[in-house]
């Protein structure tokens, strides 16, 4: 894909180099950098010396349990909060010192519902584009393309209050990306969306990356993130625990398998044998990792559980990102829906 910067040059009215925040023309100068960001609320260190970097074109996952500090980091990026210390930059723009630049260069899909109850879907997307600086024709064209690409054409003239949660979410995604910023921040973008349109949305996230945007994907959904992101950071208790590609996260689990046991709803969590790794129980799903050499013993143990009426079924498979997540955070991912 070719990045056509002239399309935006023509729309710029008075573009500013004031504040010496002009970035250069090559893609690398638009790297998004978080450098030692700490945010303290009273006694709480919501972010603790977080450092990360997202290159243009990269889809970067920000994973972590509730209260990990993900939203705090996002709000500092888009100028809603100010770091206690540290820097957030996008190319040569200091997003902390220049919140106006932050709001223009970052586009944001919040986790909360978009305020579009009175808007028709297409109108909301077009207007979001206009607010983000697009000309009327460009906003209209992009809105039409996104409606088509996300397969929400049948609701294009439906007002927001009559839209289902999933379609509203897709409209929100289109509003955030109709004229995307250099950094596109998507907070749980696939919530409430049906599986088919989720795939369309992931395609569009990839298109954003291909067009030169750095995509910051905030999610609890480890399973989806594993397939969607180029790199990810795992945050817990305000700290960045680990960073890397999904494969690098799983590297420590090489030679291991994932054992998932569906327990009887009435059963207590059974004591795990010594060969089992860290475990978690989400609902009736008990998940642990085992060494490949213990596979036979694991199958035998799980089969015994079924015979005893403690479990209903089990599965043994390759480890996933969720296993690394559990190992690193000591807690289960919220979706907890990895297949066996």
């Amino acid at each position, binding site marked *: *894909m070719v*990045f*056509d910067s002239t*399309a*935006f*040059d023509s729309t*710029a*009215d*008075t*573009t*500013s180099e004031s504040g010496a*925040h002009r*970035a250069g*023309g090559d893609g690398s100068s*638009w790297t998004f950098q978080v450098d030692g960001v700490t945010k303290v*609320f009273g006694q709480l260190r919501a972010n603790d010396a977080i450092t990360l970097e997202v290159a243009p074109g990269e889809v970067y996952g920000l994973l972590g349990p509730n209260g990990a500090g993900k939203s705090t980091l996002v709000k500092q990026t*888009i*100028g*809603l*909060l*100010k770091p206690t210390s540290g820097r957030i930059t996008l190319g040569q*723009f200091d997003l902390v010192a220049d*919140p*106006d*630049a*932050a*709001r*223009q*260069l970052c586009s*944001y899909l*919040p*986790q*909360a*519902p*978009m*305020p579009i*109850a*009175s*808007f028709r879907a297409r*109108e909301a997307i077009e*207007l979001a584009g*206009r*607010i*983000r*600086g697009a000309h009327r024709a460009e906003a209209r064209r*992009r809105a039409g*393309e*996104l409606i*088509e*690409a996300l397969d929400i054409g049948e609701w294009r003239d439906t007002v927001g209050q009559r839209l289902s949660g999933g379609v509203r979410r897709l409209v929100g995604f289109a509003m955030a*990306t109709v*004229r*995307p910023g250099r950094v596109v921040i998507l907070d749980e973008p696939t919530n409430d969306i049906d599986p088919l349109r989720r795939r369309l949305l992931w*395609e*569009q996230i990839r*298109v*954003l990356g291909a*067009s*030169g*945007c750095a995509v910051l994907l905030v999610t609890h959904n480890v399973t989806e993130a594993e397939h969607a992101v180029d790199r990810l950071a795992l945050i817990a208790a305000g700290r960045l625990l680990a960073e890397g590609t999904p494969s690098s996260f799983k590297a420590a689990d090489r030679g291991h398998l994932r054992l998932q046991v569906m327990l009887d709803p009435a059963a207590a969590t059974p004591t795990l044998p010594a060969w089992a790794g860290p475990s978690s129980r989400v609902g009736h799903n008990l998940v642990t990792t085992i060494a490949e050499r213990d596979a036979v013993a694991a199958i035998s143990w799980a089969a015994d559980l079924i015979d005893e009426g403690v479990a209903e079924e089990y599965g043994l498979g390759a480890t996933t990102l969720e296993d690394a997540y559990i190992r690193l955070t000591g807690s289960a991912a919220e979706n907890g829906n990895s297949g066996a």
Partner: protein
Amino acid sequence: MSSVVDAGPPTEVRRGAAHWAGGYGAMLRWHLASLRLWLAFLVGIQILSGVGFVLGIALFFKPIPVSVALFVSTGVPVVNLLTIGLMLGPQLVASQKIDGSYDYLRCLPVSRSANALAWYTVTLVGGVPAMVVSLAVAQARYHLPLHLSAMIVPAVLLTCFTGTMVGYAVAHALSKATATRLVTQLLTFAVFSFAPVLYPVRQLPRWLGTLNWWLPFRQMAVAVRASLTSGPNPGLVTAYIALAIWATACAAVSALVLGRRE
């Protein structure tokens, strides 16, 4: 994979007058569209309440003196102009804080002053029709010696602006939505009950009259009333100076509050 992003992300940060004007226009459309289901209803309620004040006052007298009818009828426009800015604005912001959309709206790439002025325009759109209808009904009912002057324009603009900015500052300064709603209701009650807008200041205890001299609401009534009547208008210059100071101060506070980052 369909590639719908063919223009790529922005390469510049836009600033300047054209960016400001574009933001103003877009946010005006946003506010009007977001109130689409309610704006006509709101204007209707405004008209009903304005006309209600105008006609209702006659029930206290038999017959109503023209001077009383004139005083009340020329105070009602202030009520019309204040209600939306002082009450509706903060209530909407409180709702946005509850439903979580407040952060999204705050991070839109629009100049904060352009957004504030877009909202001010909406309050004018909501308040002026009711003002006009209330005055027309008053004229028809009481045959008042109204004398409309060009000063109605600055009087209406300043009154509406100051009221809107007071509401704007309250809405954004208070972090809790419930607090915003309570303070707004208290403020509205206090203004309509204890500010000499629909009755002369001499009706108030001396200390409350003095207090009102420092507040903007009495000055709004003086400015608007002077633009609708003929004859001497003592305190008119003071009223405009006071309103200008209040308008500037409220705009500054609003800008400070909106630009504040925890």
